[in-house]
């Protein structure tokens, strides 16, 4: 007696719409893009070239997984691009001073540094209650400025082959390490989101007060999301450094690409809903789109323009209430013709 038939019907519709609305479209989009790539470039699915595509996409996919954690908890992390740049430059400078440092140690050091940046972001946002948008924007500017000051705009130092092989090399001669990194990050992210941490993270993003009253340590959970995002950014930095080498622009714009990817994956800005796999699929889609545009001869300079359209369209379509639009259309909007 609590539910009547109409609400039952609407619930079913809402349920189907919900599933389509958050996850499914990005998989469809990805499939369409991959099909389009196959048509444009028949060689695309040669194992080598396909693995190379994944390798190129890997940093963004890893960043998207980290960004997802923060967005789903109700925040933003704008600092990840700057963390990538800082990571690449710091690695190069470090090898400039200690050319024989073992690559594993340097990689671990960078990951730790990324985690610390995330920790600072998280603590400032949750303890000092500075909105994460501002905190991480500030962190981005601080890191960018520091890198520029440190290097004078042209970073010195050469990364040794051992360090770079993670981003450019292959395991067993054919499987790129970057692909393995992607898979590992995906597996960890899925496991995390199914764990107590992930479920409480979603609940916190959905309703912070209810979560706190249920005993969730909201500041800790939120901070952990930033730590994960910072660590993911540092891992992306290692891949980017291996793949493209040293540059003071290594991570430029990656924060927005990561947010675009997450939004494309149907994750709701403001928190509480979305799947991490869909967010990573969003990153693949974005990379596939850039590749496709490249193959079609569209200028790379237009990438950010395309990205802008995508972000607005994805959020706009996600927010649009089509039933209302339909009703409005069917309703004659006459004025005050009272009878």
């Amino acid at each position: 007696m609590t539910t009547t038939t109409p609400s039952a019907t609407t619930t079913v519709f809402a349920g189907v719409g919900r599933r389509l609305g958050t996850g499914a479209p990005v998989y469809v989009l990805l499939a369409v893009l991959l099909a389009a790539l196959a048509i444009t470039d028949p060689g695309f699915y040669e194992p080598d070239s396909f693995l190379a595509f994944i390798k190129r996409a890997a940093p963004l996919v890893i960043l998207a997984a980290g960004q997802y954690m923060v967005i789903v908890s109700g925040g933003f992390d704008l600092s990840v691009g700057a963390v990538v740049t800082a990571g690449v430059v710091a690695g190069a400078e470090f090898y400039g001073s200690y050319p024989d440092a073992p690559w594993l140690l340097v990689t671990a050091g960078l990951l730790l540094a990324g985690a610390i940046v995330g920790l600072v972001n998280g603590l400032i946002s949750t303890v000092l209650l500075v909105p994460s948008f501002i905190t991480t924007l500030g962190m981005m500017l601080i890191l960018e400025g520091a890198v520029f000051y440190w290097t004078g705009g042209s970073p010195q130092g050469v990364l040794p082959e051992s360090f770079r092989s993670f981003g450019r090399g292959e395991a067993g001669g054919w499987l790129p390490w970057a692909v393995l990194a992607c898979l590992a990050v995906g597996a960890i992210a899925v496991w995390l989101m199914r764990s107590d941490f992930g479920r409480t993270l979603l609940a916190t993003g959905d309703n912070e007060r209810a979560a706190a009253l249920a005993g969730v340590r909201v500041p800790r959970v939120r901070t952990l999301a930033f730590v994960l995002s910072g660590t993911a950014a540092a891992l992306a930095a290692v891949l980017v450094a291996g793949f493209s080498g040293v540059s003071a622009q290594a991570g430029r714009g990656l924060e927005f690409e990561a947010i675009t990817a997450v939004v494309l994956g149907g994750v709701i800005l403001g928190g509480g809903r979305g799947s991490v796999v869909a967010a990573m699929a969003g990153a693949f889609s974005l990379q596939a789109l850039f590749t496709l545009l490249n193959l079609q001869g569209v200028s790379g300079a237009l990438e950010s323009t395309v990205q802008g359209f995508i972000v607005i369209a994805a959020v706009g379509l996600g927010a649009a209430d089509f039933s209302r639009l339909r009703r409005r259309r069917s309703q004659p909007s006459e004025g005050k013709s009272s009878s």
Partner: protein
Amino acid sequence: MLTMQDVSKSFLGVRVLHGVSLDLEPGEVHALVGENGAGKSTLMKVLAGEYAPDEGTITLDGTVHAFSHPVQAQAAGIGLIHQEFALLPHRTVAENVFLGREPVRRGFVDRRAMERRTAELLAELDETGITPRTLVKDLSVARQQTVEIVKALAASDVRVLVMDEPTAPLADHEVELLYALIRRLAARGIGILYISHRLREVFDLSRRITVLKDGRKVATLTTADTTADEVVRAMVGRELGSYYPPRAGPEEIGEPLLTTAGAGNERLAGIDLTLRAGEVTGVAGLQGSGRTSLVRALFGAAPFTRGHMTVTGRALRPASPRQAIRGGIALVTEDRKGEGLALRQSVRDNALLVTRAVHGEGAQAGGVAGLLERVNLRSRGHDQEVQYLSGGNQQKVVIAKWLAAGPRVLLFDEPTRGVDVGAKAAIHTLVRELARDGMAVLIVSSELPELIGMSDRILVMSDGTLAGELPAGAGEEDIMRLATASDATPEGSAA
């Protein structure tokens, strides 16, 4: 004056109104009651022109109307006061009243005419606490509601005013003001359709009561000739039997599970109470007397800063909800959507939230089915998002969430607010069962019949202190006497 004849309406092929008829006389307050989903709101939206009926007619003062837009209904003299106000907080009362219809003089808004007319309307309603130039944000909720009503009156020559749960946002003492306002409107010949869950109000105000169930009209009763029992029976279509489950016998009441001595904070003082296993303790008091502050202090959400507290025999004055939960305390808050549930998460994730957050053992999802069965949840599976559940079922999910953590002390703040009659009885039964299972239960409720029906004893709060204790079955008068005794000495008589 107003007749709705055989109104039917379907959505997506599902009929939600089956030939409902209703009539309204000038100056009559006609109550419309029914459980959630009975069709009250749909019927009123048909009347207000928001939905076009599939069948049936609306006749107002002898004219048959077919509204296809709310503006037409408004022009014909039908005003609708929604539960949520549509006011601009940073604009003045007069600006809100004439929003979108500002009088114009030489191309400019004629502020003086606008304010003069607003003042006239306010005067007609004997409303002296509002001036046309007051900013809406500076008004109390009750006064904002008055502005909504004035807005409806200014829009046209209102013949029919529909009020949807008008007392829901109001504090207790503001309800009387609304009653007076409604009676004045009725005295001017305006017919009022009054939707409410609260039968008390319905009996206080209405001349007739129409009961809807599952989109059909069950009956139209003359208020003076009927009883609350009869109305409830019509609403749920069955005997609810005795409203409340039997109280605990003396042998069922066990050891103290929670005690406080001299506890207080900035809102509470001298709180001495004991909650026992198996016992349901009610807390009564007027709005602002500190009832909610008390449960929040016991739960560590707005902690005590003074005094002593024990939980299951150990000293524990919780400084955070987490500490309270670890100690075995649970709180079902009054604001279910704001504080009780993560609405976009599934039934399962909500039910496991506390265990996951505090005990870190949420992975054992197998226990969920048992929990939800325990609270008798009706949902479309455990993956359904809780936002799509009815209020009663949402409340059951909240209770399940706490039961998962195995609490010894359960605090309920307004446990049945916004819950329909059938689910209400289910929650009452559940609460009593939990007490019988050996938990200590404390209930805060502003519905005195509920408090009296459920409690084994009643503590009355006034001014942040416990003003006194009453035994089971105390009358409403006794409670109100203690609650309103302004010179009540903070003696803390509970124990």
